[in-house]
């Protein structure tokens, strides 16, 4: 059975999503336990796959028994397995959390929302597990469509934000598809490993160059890399808490994963450094992204919006690691992905819990939250420390690797930018902590929301557990960062650095 896990990890959530529809019509209260159950199973399978990969090396799984490149092939190495764990783990946290969150924010529509939630996990897992470029596109669209639906049901200005997201997301996906088409016309293959074998002879043709650029631009749109980021803050801001608590950590990072695959596995990275030096441009964009994102975040007065801009800044870190194209950069990018998933889960879910209790996420209204929601705020603080990069959280180690990478590449100015962005992080996060810690609740604050009056106290257990678990994951991954490097990253560092 274990060798079938690669197929099951995608199909089980899919089947569960199908079954969710009649189940929800039968009794809506069963949706949430079902969701949690399935994602727990998925997480177990992800860990199983990781174990197998570590013990026996990369797994190849042939869909329908067809030999690649004619059939669709899964080629699973440590990076795939790692992404699967992150997706199903973060999905599990969000699933537990979604019980009270959906009941508050989209009451009465949990059935469809839970079903779409599972579809989102299906899509994301499909993207990161497959080794076929067109298959990536299909799952990219499953993931995108489900997240469009989930964001748009947030109410308020969410539909407009979603529409912009749809337009931008479609342009991104289409650019990717076009890039795949260009590769197909010049090689005749869609399989990643196969293309990697075929492409080097064609590196000097214009069509391959265009294809590489198109794919990177398309994924950058999905990833919200700096000049293409405009759609992201509003979309994640308007989404229901459980959705933004899963989409914000996962989507941009899955796109980051795709960039890693394109730069290092599909093409040889020498292609992007020597023949078509786009990595140089990407590294500068990354630096601009992490500074601009932080500056935007400072300008916000709303906690959730601030976090959305911090997502943009963090994309800069990932891309920087990829674009520097050396060992430390590659490791730093992957560590940043892990850190981002844990941290953003923790912070976004904690923010959702705050909104659940306070009814608002404007920073001025968060007075004395440390007193009223101590555990949530403690977890939030752990997340903040990881964002800033205080050891022993993983954030510190990922930044450390990035700084090594800059050193190795001899980019002193980038180190300065990294440190500056750290200081900016301190500025905007400690503003929140300051209000939550030292200011009293505003006496004239009135709940304008349609929520019923609730006491501002510790969040319900189902919301609290995921937040605390994510905070624990931040510390654990930080302490285990060297293990992660040895077992998960070192085996997949591309040859040639």
């Amino acid at each position: 059975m274990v060798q079938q896990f690669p197929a099951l990890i995608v199909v089980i959530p899919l089947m569960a999503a199908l079954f969710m529809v009649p189940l929800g019509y039968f009794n809506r209260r069963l949706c949430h336990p079902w969701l949690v159950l399935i994602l727990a199973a998925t997480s177990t399978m992800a860990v199983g796959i990781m174990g197998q990969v570590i013990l026996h090396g990369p797994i190849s799984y042939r869909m329908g028994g067809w030999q690649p490149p004619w059939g669709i092939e899964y080629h699973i190495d440590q990076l795939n397995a790692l992404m699967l764990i992150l997706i199903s783990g973060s999905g599990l946290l969000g699933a537990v959390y979604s019980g009270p969150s959906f009941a508050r924010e989209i009451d009465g529509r949990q059935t469809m929302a839970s079903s779409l939630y599972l579809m989102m996990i299906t899509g994301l897992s499909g993207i990161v597990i497959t080794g076929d470029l067109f298959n990536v596109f299909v799952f990219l669209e499953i993931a995108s469509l489900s997240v469009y639906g989930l964001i748009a049901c947030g109410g308020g200005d969410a539909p407009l934000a979603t529409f912009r997201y749809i337009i931008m997301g479609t342009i991104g996906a289409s650019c990717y598809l076009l890039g795949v088409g260009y590769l197909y016309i010049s090689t005749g293959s869609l399989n990643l490993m196969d293309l990697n074998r075929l492409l080097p002879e064609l590196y000097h043709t214009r069509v391959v160059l265009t294809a590489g650029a198109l794919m990177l631009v398309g994924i950058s749109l999905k990833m919200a890399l700096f000049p293409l980021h405009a759609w992201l803050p509003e979309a994640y801001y308007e989404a229901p808490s459980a959705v933004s608590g899963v989409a914000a950590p996962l989507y941009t990072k899955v796109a980051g994963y795709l960039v890693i695959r394109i730069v290092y596995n599909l093409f040889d990275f020498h292609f992007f450094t020597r023949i078509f030096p786009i990595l140089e441009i990407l590294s500068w964009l990354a630096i601009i992204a992490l500074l601009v994102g932080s500056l935007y975040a400072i300008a916000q007065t709303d906690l959730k919006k601030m976090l959305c801009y911090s997502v943009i800044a963090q994309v800069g870190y990932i891309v920087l690691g990829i674009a520097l194209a050396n060992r430390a950069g590659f490791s730093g990018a992957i560590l940043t992905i892990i850190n981002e998933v844990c941290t953003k889960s923790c912070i976004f879910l904690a923010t959702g819990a705050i909104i659940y209790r306070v009814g608002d996420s404007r920073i001025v209204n968060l007075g004395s939250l440390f007193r009223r929601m101590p555990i949530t705020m403690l977890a939030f603080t752990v997340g903040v420390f990881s964002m800033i990069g205080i050891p022993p959280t993983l954030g510190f180690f990922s930044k450390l690797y990035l700084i090594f990478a800059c050193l190795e590449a001899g980019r002193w100015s980038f180190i300065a930018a990294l440190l500056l962005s750290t200081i900016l992080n301190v500025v905007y996060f400690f503003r929140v902590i300051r209000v939550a810690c030292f200011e009293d609740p505003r006496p004239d604050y009135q709940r304008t929301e349609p929520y019923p009056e609730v006491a501002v106290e510790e969040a319900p257990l189902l919301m609290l557990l995921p937040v605390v678990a994510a905070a624990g994951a931040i510390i654990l991954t930080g302490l285990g960062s060297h293990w992660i490097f040895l077992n998960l990253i070192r085996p997949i560092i591309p040859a040639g650095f």
Partner: protein
Amino acid sequence: MKTIILIFVVLMGLFLLYGTMDMPGWGDPNSPASTWVSPRYIEQALEKTETPNLVTAVLGDYRGYDTMGETTVIFTAAIACALLLRGATGNRRKEDE
């Protein structure tokens, strides 16, 4: 603004055309796309799947997983529309802001 967009769009088009300059001509039977993966489908699909319509054979079997994804996509769309439009007047956040 519209002028900028127009210029951008034209540049993008030129870029795409630049990429096509190295492509094989239209209908070239010796292009890589026609000589690497696809001949195997044409030659073996009937024997292996007893399906003369190669498109169906590739769609349903060789790349059946893609097709399952395709079906999933449309299911997702249906569910998304249902989520958004059925009983969409419940308890909505910031509705009356």
